[in-house]
């Protein structure tokens, strides 16, 4: 078996120097992608692996452990890999909801938070020639009879689903009437919207950017607090629907790893997100930077888990 090796890198960043730690790189690191090839987590895991390899770490590789909405990967991380300091897993808010809803014995709380890496916002889209011209056309429908507006998005409990529930709530409608159709892939959601059997599509901006650029869709709004640079869409908030929802994605390590391994992983990820290679991936994939490391990320995860529980109850997905 290969032993962990800590390689000191001569370049020491100001912050880590102040803490008395050298920037450390990882070696022979595996990154679990808890999904099939082809989605956001897959490209995120592979991009992080490449950025790490380009920034001092050696032999970092991503590996797909698909299934159970990400829970297969989580189960492997917390169950079989306890104490393994050479392992990371990609995750995001959908994993919190999935483990709550499916009463999984494994939860993110058991893992060791390393860093939040990217942020994203949700967009609301309609067919280019839809009769819903703007959010103002949709709000009364959500208020009076939410069932009339078919909304297509990702898995039950996903950020897409939660946003839909929050919108009905903010419009003053009955959340139990929400007409949400979960579909297995962005491709099918896109087909549902272009084909016209779902009036509205919900999804993360980065995943929808290519389809939006094709001109077949119109963006009704984006769930960011302020208008985003380079995105030609008004926010939901400025159109009178008080909903702000950010999604984010990051990496966690197995439970029970020692402090030194944890710090190595944190600084290896930090080096990676500072690299030019990473900046290039980010702009190519339209991910926003939301780097947040270690204990701060742990606190956010905790808060996020409580919030997700509340929202899922509100939307009627949890008892």
């Amino acid at each position, binding site marked *: 078996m290969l032993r962990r090796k800590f390689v000191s890198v001569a370049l020491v960043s100001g912050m880590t120097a102040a803490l008395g730690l050298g920037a450390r790189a990882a070696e022979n690191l595996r990154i679990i992608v808890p999904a099939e*090839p082809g989605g956001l987590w897959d490209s995120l895991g592979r991009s992080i692996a490449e950025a790490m390899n380009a920034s001092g770490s050696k032999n970092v590789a991503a590996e*797909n452990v698909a299934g159970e909405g990400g*829970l297969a990967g989580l189960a492997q991380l917390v169950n079989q890999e306890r104490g393994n300091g050479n392992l990371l897993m990609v995750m995001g808010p959908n994993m919190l909801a999935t483990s709550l809803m499916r009463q999984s014995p494994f939860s993110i709380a058991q893992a060791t938070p390393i860093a939040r890496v990217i942020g994203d916002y949700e967009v609301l889209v309609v067919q280019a020639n839809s009769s819903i011209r703007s959010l103002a056309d949709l709000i009364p429908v959500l208020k009076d009879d939410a069932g009339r507006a078919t909304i297509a998005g990702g898995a039950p409990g996903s950020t897409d689903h939660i946003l839909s529930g929050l919108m009905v709530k903010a419009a003053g409608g009955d959340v139990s009437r929400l*007409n949400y159709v979960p579909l297995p892939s962005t491709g099918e959601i896109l087909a549902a919207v272009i084909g016209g059997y779902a009036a509205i599509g919900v999804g993360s901006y980065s995943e929808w950017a290519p389809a939006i650029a094709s001109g077949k869709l119109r963006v009704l709004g984006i769930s960011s607090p302020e208008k985003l640079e380079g995105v030609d869409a008004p926010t939901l908030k400025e159109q009178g629907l008080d909903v702000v929802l950010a999604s984010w994605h990051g990496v966690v390590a197995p439970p029970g790893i020692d402090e030194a391994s944890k710090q190595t992983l944190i600084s290896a990820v930090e080096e990676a997100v500072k690299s030019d290679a990473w900046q290039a991936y980010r702009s190519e994939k339209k991910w926003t930077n939301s780097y947040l490391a270690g204990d701060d990320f742990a606190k956010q995860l905790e808060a996020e888990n409580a919030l997700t529980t509340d929202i899922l109850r509100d939307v009627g997905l949890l008892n």
Partner: protein
Amino acid sequence: VGAFDALMQGFATAATPINLLWSLIGVTLGTLIGLLPGIGPALTIALLLPVTRKLDPTGAFIMFAGLYYGAMYGSSTTSILLNTPGESGSIVTALEGNKMARKGRGAAALATAAIGSFVAGTLGTLALTLLAPIFVKFALLFGPAEYFALMVLAFTTVTSVLGASKLRGAVALLLGLAFGLVGTDILTGQPRLVFGLPSMLRGIDIVVVAVGLFAVGEALYMASRRDLRSAEVLPIKGSLFMTREEWSRSWKPWLRGTAIGFPFGALPAGGTEIPTFLSYFAEKKLAKNPEEFGHGAIEGVAGPEAANNAAVAGVLVPLLTLGLPTSATAAILLAAFEQYNLQPGPQLFQNSGDLVWGLIASLYIGNVMLLVLNLPLAGMWVRLLSIPQSLLYAGILIFSTLGVYSLSNSVFDLVLLWIVGLVGFLMRRYDYPVAPAIIGLILGPLAEAQFRRALTISQGDPSVFITHPLSLFLLLAAFCVVAGPAAYGRLKRRKPI
């Protein structure tokens, strides 16, 4: 015509030595990964993406396309010779293909699969070249109600594999449907029939069940018979390749398989499995000797193999014209487009005409390469069967165990494989057909998902299935398939009076 000139330009791009080399690498790799159940084209392309980042995009896409087609070729080989489907699109191939192999016509089965794939791939590419916009319009007509009706129609195909006893066939179908219920409820995310086992949440993998029922069940059954050593499997009987009769029985199924497979590939939720069922069903209904089905009818290999390759060509239609990925592999290809800052959709044809037409031209070339690669190999592969039976079946057990483990490195899958294998053994021992179980497992969850989606959208109003014209049409077609023969029989009997 503009398209023709552009295509010729594309051939000029694709036929440069370096691009031919990429195509060769792609088809060879594809054939290899098709052989193993676990590794599919999606994962392979994902692994290759970083390597190809520095490459010229045309070369990279030519390689990926070859890989995608090649995987379909490769998986038919293990289906036919070892009764172990490598991809879910070639499960049906095992039904007749393996029977042919045992009768000494393995090489002919491989040949009809390879040539059928070639014909379908080439015609599919032709349809992609000329008719892409029309097929996209057609594909977008399908909503959940239409898909459900289509599934109902596909369910009728089960009648062609029920076997001698309708009751036993129905039991097998129900078993498959029950397997299909396991997992997570698609609308609410609640666990269903998982018995507290977290690994069951993702449901039961089709490939695990197919390999378990076909390969493991079969191997256990052979081992249970005392005359294993004397059991007769002829590697080659008669001419090595296809006889004149086999040619004349194959060419129509190739064309029909293509016609069924291509539109399915273009559907956002079409897939490669259902067109193979439909093609098998159609061939059995149209065959001169339907009683030969189940004992190695070449039509049952030629049709489905053409259908799955045509479906692969179909997948490229919505991907290139709309940027709409309809399979995991297509989603990866979309990511590859992004990597090169290319925007699939109508603009792609205008902005990067060289690449698109080069890609399309390379599909034609890739198909020729696959044929050249696979036909001579058929003669070599088939010699696998001259291995003594006991060793061959032991090898199949090892091969299928390894392959299933490579699906998701899960020990649970292995336990499941062997439990399903045991079920498969009992089914064979007591003469229950296994094919209906597979059809139930594949179609059950799809039909349920679409049915419930349709009802969610209509807010519980079941009339959507008959008020949508396309859905109504498909349901009527399904009704005719089931009730038609009985009604026809009755009319015939009345005639003499």
